[in-house]
């Protein structure tokens, strides 16, 4: 058999047991690749429990800079006996398996088309450490040390990482470095290093950063001026609020008093969380909540109130695999329809679709501008893949000249000057957006009553059908206006002019871009459009109009974004070919290429999907 040979282009998969401290060690591996200037993208595949179940950490190293999931495994680091058989089976022919050979391996797992690299980790730890906890923890550090030899990771880089990681806890540095060396030495002596698959220093990451989308979103909210946060814990959204708190405690403390320039309320449930956000928005504060599918469902009554009463609110929905509790630690883009049309009656909500951390930061901030300008809820649809995995991203940047857009709010001076009667729901500017006032602004002017029941232009309760219709029509007009406020789509023109297009958004982006390159190499050219917001604006409609066949790639079962495009842009469904992937793992370029290839090849079914039961297109 021929071992795979490749430099800076491979997938390594760490198989561990949940709760054994492997995450931090594996993370050290990723950072070391990154610091060697080589593009890297890790995916954390963890179970919905706290300790004892299999967990995987799949790292793609890719000199070309593709950071979407690749699929396939070149190197498996098998640290979990439970899943070892399966993990070995997953390795590509010619690949490598790193495992703990303190006990002899079950021969039934053996494959002769791959290379086995045994490290006596348990044994080493038994000799080195007395405390079982230390044995457990350092085991992970030791295999990282071994990998540095096997894959040619500069040892200095690792040492620096340990230094940074344990800054402030200096007494932990030495033992960690020692553990690294143990592994490094052992591999050096026992194996021919480096392996055919290994790393080489490059200068390909520039000033990029490694950050999880949820952290970027939280930082965006801080920069965007969010002051009130109300939430209820739920995976994978919890880390948004954790990050907000962590950073706000650094960046939002009053120098003099030490008081907080923010408030975080852990609500009793999601209904209360969104209620608090709406109450704060009504008072004039920038407020948000973070949740996932089940929370979005619970918030739907309140979302209808905010839509109809026109109260600004921001909701970060970090999507996970539904329906119901579904697969809470797997990723999906499947809350699109329930977010767009949340709540009973005629409602429509503004959605944003960030694709990477830099955009999470931007949208995390601008969502508050939009909420106040449009006086309606803004739902930012991220997902577990983007939210909880380190993404290689452009550095976060803030335009110092940018000022918050607070929308149409009458201050006390404006009210003082006001001569005619104030009408909260008067469409003065004929754009569907009216002027609101904040409680406490003026002692005698601009007061109005906010309600979820029908009212006239002066916020007076009414059961008049005409007044009701006028108001509902104005809300439609406001939604039209919204099209010019929300971020425009991004375009990726094909090398050759073509009548084929591909529409994608959010975390499908990286794999779609890689797929477009791959297809082009095969002579299949598609123009690409990345959706960034709903409502869809004219550019979206034009892109669709100017192509004959458009592949809509998304990570859900029912082709929800495709449905939304069809009804909102009034598109003939035949034009939009659905390409869905929804097994909870991030979508790969391989699958997209395959699907497009066979679609172009004439087949109208999309092989991404096992069956097409119950669905046309």
């Amino acid at each position, binding site marked *: 058999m021929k071992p795979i040979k490749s430099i800076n282009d491979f997938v390594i998969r760490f198989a561990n047991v949940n709760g054994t401290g492997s995450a931090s060690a594996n993370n050290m591996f990723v950072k070391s690749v990154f610091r060697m200037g080589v593009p890297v993208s890790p995916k954390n595949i963890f179970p919905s429990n706290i300790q004892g179940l299999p967990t995987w950490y799949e790292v793609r190293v890719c000199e070309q800079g593709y950071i979407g999931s690749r699929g396939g495994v070149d190197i498996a680091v098998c640290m979990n006996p439970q899943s070892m058989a399966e993990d070995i089976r997953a390795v590509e022919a010619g690949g490598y398996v790193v495992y703990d050979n303190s006990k002899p391996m079950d021969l039934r797992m053996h494959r002769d088309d791959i290379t086995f690299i045994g490290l006596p980790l348990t044994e080493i730890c038994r000799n080195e450490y007395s405390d079982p906890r230390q044995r457990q923890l350092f085991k992970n550090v030791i295999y990282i040390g071994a990998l540095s030899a096997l894959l040619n990771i500069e040892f200095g880089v690792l040492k620096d990482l340990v230094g940074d990681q344990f800054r402030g806890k200096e007494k932990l540095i030495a033992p960690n470095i020692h553990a690294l060396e143990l592994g490094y030495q052992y591999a050096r002596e026992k194996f021919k290093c480096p392996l055919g698959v290994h790393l080489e220093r490059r200068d390909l990451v520039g000033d990029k950063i490694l950050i999880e989308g949820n952290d970027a979103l939280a930082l965006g909210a801080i920069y965007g001026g969010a002051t*009130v946060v109300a939430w209820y814990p739920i995976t994978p959204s919890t880390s948004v609020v954790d990050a907000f708190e962590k950073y706000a405690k650094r960046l939002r403390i009053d120098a003099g008093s030490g008081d907080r320039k923010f408030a975080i*309320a852990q609500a009793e449930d999601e209904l209360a969380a969104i*209620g608090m956000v709406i109450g704060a928005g*009504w008072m004039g*504060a920038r407020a948000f909540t973070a949740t996932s599918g089940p929370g979005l469902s619970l918030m739907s009554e309140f979302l209808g109130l905010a839509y109809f009463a026109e109260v600004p609110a921001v909701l970060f929905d970090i999507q996970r695999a539904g329906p119901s509790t579904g697969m809470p630690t797997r990723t999906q883009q499947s809350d699109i329809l329930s977010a767009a049309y949340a709540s009973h009656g005629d409602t429509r909500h503004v959605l944003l679709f960030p694709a990477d951390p830099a955009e999470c930061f931007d949208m995390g901030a601008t969502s508050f501008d939009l909420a106040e300008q449009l006086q309606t809820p803004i739902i930012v649809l991220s997902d577990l893949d983007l939210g909880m995995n380190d993404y290689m991203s452009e550095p976060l940047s803030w335009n110092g000249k940018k000022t918050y857009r607070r929308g149409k709010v009458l201050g006390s001076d404006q009210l003082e000057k006001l001569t005619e009667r104030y009408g909260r729901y008067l469409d003065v500017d004929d754009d569907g957006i009216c002027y609101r006032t904040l409680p406490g602004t003026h*002692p005698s002017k601009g007061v109005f009553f906010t309600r979820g029941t029908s009212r006239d232009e002066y916020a007076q309760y009414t059961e008049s059908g005409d007044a009701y219709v006028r108001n509902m029509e104005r809300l439609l007009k406001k939604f039209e206006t919204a099209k010019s406020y929300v971020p425009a789509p991004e375009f990726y023109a094909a090398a050759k002019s073509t009548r084929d297009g591909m529409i994608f958004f959010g975390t499908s982006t990286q794999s779609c871009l890689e797929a477009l390159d791959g297809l082009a190499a095969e002579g299949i050219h598609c123009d690409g459009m990345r959706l960034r917001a709903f409502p869809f604006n004219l550019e979206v409609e034009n892109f669709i109009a100017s192509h004959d066949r458009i592949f809509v790639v998304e990570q859900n079962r029912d082709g929800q974004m495709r449905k939304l495009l069809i009804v909102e842009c009034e598109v003939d469904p035949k034009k939009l070919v659905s390409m869905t992937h929804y097994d909870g793992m991030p979508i790969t370029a391989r699958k997209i290429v395959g699907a497009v290839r066979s679609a172009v090849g004439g087949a109208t079914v999309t092989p991404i999907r096992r069956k097409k039961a119950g669905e046309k297109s």
Partner: protein
Amino acid sequence: MSYIRPNFRHPELPANEKGYTKRHYEGAISTLCAGCGHDSVSGAIIQSCYEMAIEPHRIAKISGIGCSSKTPTYFLGNSHGFNSVHGRMPSVATGANLANRNMIYIGVSGDGDSASIGLGQFAHVARRNLNMLYLVENNGCYGLTKGQDSATADVGSASKKGEPNPYEPIDLCALALQAGASFVARSFSGDKEQLVPLIKAAIAHTGFAFIDVISPCVTFNNTASSTKGYEFARSHIEATGKIDFVPLRKEITADYAPGFSQEITLHDGSVIHLYKQEELDCHDRNGALAAIQDYAGRGQILTGLLYIDPDTRDFHDNQNTTKKPLVDLGQSELCPGNRALKAINASLR
């Protein structure tokens, strides 16, 4: 925010020292049933705010859904109000309060709104000791949906269907006490004498002030067998004493007989004098619970101020939020700027 003194005056009506006449505190004409207890409560709120000379625009009214929750439209027409969704007033009030701690919050709810669909939010807002007046207009039924039993309906009381209710009523005062409310009182809509001072005390109190007001539903809840019914309530209420709210500026104690008095100094320095029987100590949470159950055991409803802790930490204190309301912080105070961001980026390489 500039608080401009209004320059209009009603010649005939007396103005309070902030220059507002009672009319400034009134609202739209009520659309409730003639004689509904809720309207009396609205009147009591109007009078309290007038007497306390609160600038109307410094008050925020919040409610859920129900006949009771409609009343904010019928009082304080010069204050912003929010008629939210059923049972969720507490969360809306919480968010509003977090945003602007300088406003005075008056939340009005019903027994269906607070004891059924809203029970969880009610208990948790009390636990957070949010600085607000939370007033339940308790009629033991769902008025607006035509008289079904609510969770506070008394055992054996017949609903509009004439069927005896088999379930123990939920006592919202007891629940508030358990959840950690720092001010708990009960009164009766027809008893302004007692209600107005309680409302004023509650508004003056810093922290979560709860008042359970028995407010009969003349339309669906007046069956003789219901203890929330007018007659029954009247004859069965045993007042624990009169309360007189006294702002620091001019203390009036003259017209009240001395003795049996207990003086409580509120956070804002104002003082309330209680005339009451010895055995109810308003500083004893457990004692209050016991007393409620005691009187309930005798088929009586204990009214008056049941418990107060003048000296608690409200939600903001526990959160260490700035004294300056969050809504008043500008971009310069909120946005850390590019320097900080560069440092963060650096830490992520």
